[in-house]
């Protein structure tokens, strides 16, 4: 596993709040666009292996097949 799934943030509530604030006032389409940009940035930062593991984890958490 190269994906960090243990707590890794100093201020999880604060960062979560920042995420919500970023979406405040956006339409659904604008929110989706923001998330898409964010996902791409984080995917590149995480690197190939961690990004693929993150994708599988996100699918599994939603009850979808990792395919």
């Amino acid at each position, binding site marked *: 596993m190269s994906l960090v799934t243990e707590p890794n943030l100093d201020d999880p509530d604060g960062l979560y709040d920042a995420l919500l604030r970023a979406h405040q006032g956006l339409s659904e389409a604008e929110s*989706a*666009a923001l*998330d*898409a*940009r964010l996902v*791409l940035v984080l995917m*590149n930062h995480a690197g190939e292996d961690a990004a693929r593991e993150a994708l599988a984890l996100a699918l599994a958490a939603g009850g979808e097949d990792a395919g």
Partner: protein
Amino acid sequence: MPYDYRRMPYETPAPLKRGEAEERIGVAIVGAGPIGLALAVDLAMRGVASVVLDDNDVVSVGSRAICWAKRSLEILDRLGVGERIAEKGVTWKVGRTYHGDEEVWSFDLLPEEGHKMPAFVNLQQYYVEEYLVERCRDFPDLIDLRVLNTVTGVSRDGSATVSTPDGTYRLKADWLVACDGARSPIREGLGLEFVGELFEERFLIADITMKADFPAERRFWFEPPFHEGQSALLHKQPDDLWRIDLQLGWDADPEEEKRPEKVIPRIERIVGDRPFELDWVSVYTFQCRRLARFVHDRVIFCGDSAHVVSPFGARGGNGGLQDVDALGWKLALIAKGEAPESLLESYEAERIEAADENIRNSSRATRFMTPHPGAERWFRDAVLALAKKAPFARSMVNSGRLSRPCSYSASPLSGPDDPTLPAASRPGAPAPDAPFGDDWLLNALPDGFTVLVFGGEAHLPGATTLVAPREDALRARYLGEAERAFYLIRPDQHVAARWTHWDKAAAAGALAKAKGGAP
């Protein structure tokens, strides 16, 4: 200056002159496009005769395939027309991709020196066909090019009916090669279906004659100011001809969009007030599909008849020429009784791997260019937005990953590898070109099997020994850190096997394997 479409002379075909009920043919090639013509030349250079049948008597109407990739140029050079094509065509290697009017990404396709052929040459398909037709005439005893010979009623046993202005005749070929294009009547006649994806998108393709000093680069726009919300592509061709592709959307009416009243204003928005003339207009849809198998008893599919891709990436015509490259020598050995018919299984294995690679690349590019509403669109737009801010996103901008030759990773013909040697020349890969004395390596390679020797001595019955000169680029591409290397190279210039120590028995085994085992 518009191209002068000269008619090729029709002659009464030999079987009708002789009054034969059924003509026996070794190799029949159906379709005198670049693929069929190249195959006829390849076979003739190996001493094998063929009859080429085409329902038409002119070369391709409209520029159609225009981007000839380095490997295609090398293949065409092996066939004797590469230099002519490179000389007439527009050489380019830089591609620029824009979002709106801002450049978001550019690439240089051949950053390395020491190759005879450039990364890409743009040349209208009709010139390539014209040069190949002329090359065919160098082999009057081996190539029988029959225009206005329409093939119908093909069977898997290689028999067919041919209709001509003088009536019909029957033929029975040992091998019938279908080079009859994306809409292949032979494929349809045999009831074979393509599997894969059809994209619901339409593009307008237009050739215009115009004096302009735009650079010889491939330019691609996402959402350009002159064609809102869609994509556009501009390519330079010789004779002051420019290729423009414009995305139209699935709802566009193809007949309506082809009307000059409709096309001209669209082009005026791109080229401004420069005067231009429309040369050719067409509307196309995308498919990324292939046949499940390329060989059906005595009928072999080659080029677009076997697989089709979207044009972004130049993987159609180039993929087809690589089919010819892989098929020509195998079919020649089989026709001469020097290899078993099962050698054709390797044509299928190698070219299906290549077709899948081309289809994968082409599908990805098409999805990026023409995203479905929803997630596909969000991520595409996210990549374009980020590309202006962050370098990582630029590598995700996909306006077509341009044709590169397939390295046959799982070829049944490949023999031993020594992985300490450079990866670029591993078994299955096309041999990389390099300066070779006063010549180029790919020109120095003989038509048959070759043992290319770096240091030491090697002789192998059934192969020609070629001793490599001490040249830096050559050594970098074939030796790396090693002191010695021995390469077994196939007649299509792909590497079959390689060693750092010469072992004649191992090499003989690799040669036998590369020829498909005992005949």
